[in-house]
């Protein structure tokens, strides 16, 4: 396993900056809140995966920890989105 190359790290950083901008745009300018929050949490999960893979080099982590961390990133985003959406549908 080799450490991520500087070019790969820079690509990860640029991607993180770009999609952070998109999530702020979605939060501010998307008229449908549920769509906006869906976009915000999807982008949060993508950012989490980029940090895990690009910066933390999760590929070099023990397999169990790697699976747990990927699950954590995705589960947190789904949980926050679901907890946002469910009360809207109940009211």
């Amino acid at each position: 396993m080799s450490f991520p190359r500087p070019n790969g790290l820079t690509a990860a950083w640029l991607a993180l900056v770009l999609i952070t901008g998109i999530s702020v745009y979605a939060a501010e300018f998307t008229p449908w809140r549920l769509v906006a929050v869906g976009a915000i949490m999807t982008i949060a999960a993508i950012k989490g995966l980029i940090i895990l893979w690009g910066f933390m080099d999760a590929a070099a982590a023990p397999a169990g920890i790697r699976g747990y961390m990927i699950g954590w990133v995705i589960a947190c985003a789904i949980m926050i989105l679901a907890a946002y959406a469910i009360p809207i549908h109940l009211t």
Partner: protein
Amino acid sequence: MPAVETDLHAGWQKPPGIWMFIAFDCGSFALFFMVFMVQRAAQLSLYDASARLLDFRLGLANTLLLITSSWLVALGNAAGRQGDLARTRQLLWAGFSVASGFAVIKGFEYAAKLSAGITAATNEFFTFYFALTGVHLLHYLIGLTTLGYLALRAGRITTPLDRVAYVRWLDGGALFWHMVDLLWVYLFAMLYLIGAR
């Protein structure tokens, strides 16, 4: 010396101990996120009105500072793995400097809230806001101190054996710093963005 060099450049794995800590810490934060969102569901209007009192531009600035700092630290970690500790030291100090802006902005944000009469006792949203960002700030301070220490140490490595030990500490310190960045991704989304308008 050749044996040490071989060890440094051989296939490697991040230290499992720090990964265990990160897994536990992230699990704890996931519970905090869940409690926040469940409580929010019970008082939607209060939480949304309170969230609108936060300035998302400050949260955005802090996000960009942490992302950039994480990138510089990752570059420093890569340079360390390649044995270029002078470059590691430069990049760690660069990461440290950029990351310091986070504390400045967070201090400004806390001061603005307190001067407006908003404290942790104002309502439940702000209890969570100060608690979650406060615990994160504690992680940030530990991470920043570690970065400073690693940057100082990088200039004092004299033997190949020291270098191997240093790179292991560098791996662990960098991982911790990236976790601070990772946790902020969710705090920014949950506190600043989903109730932004």
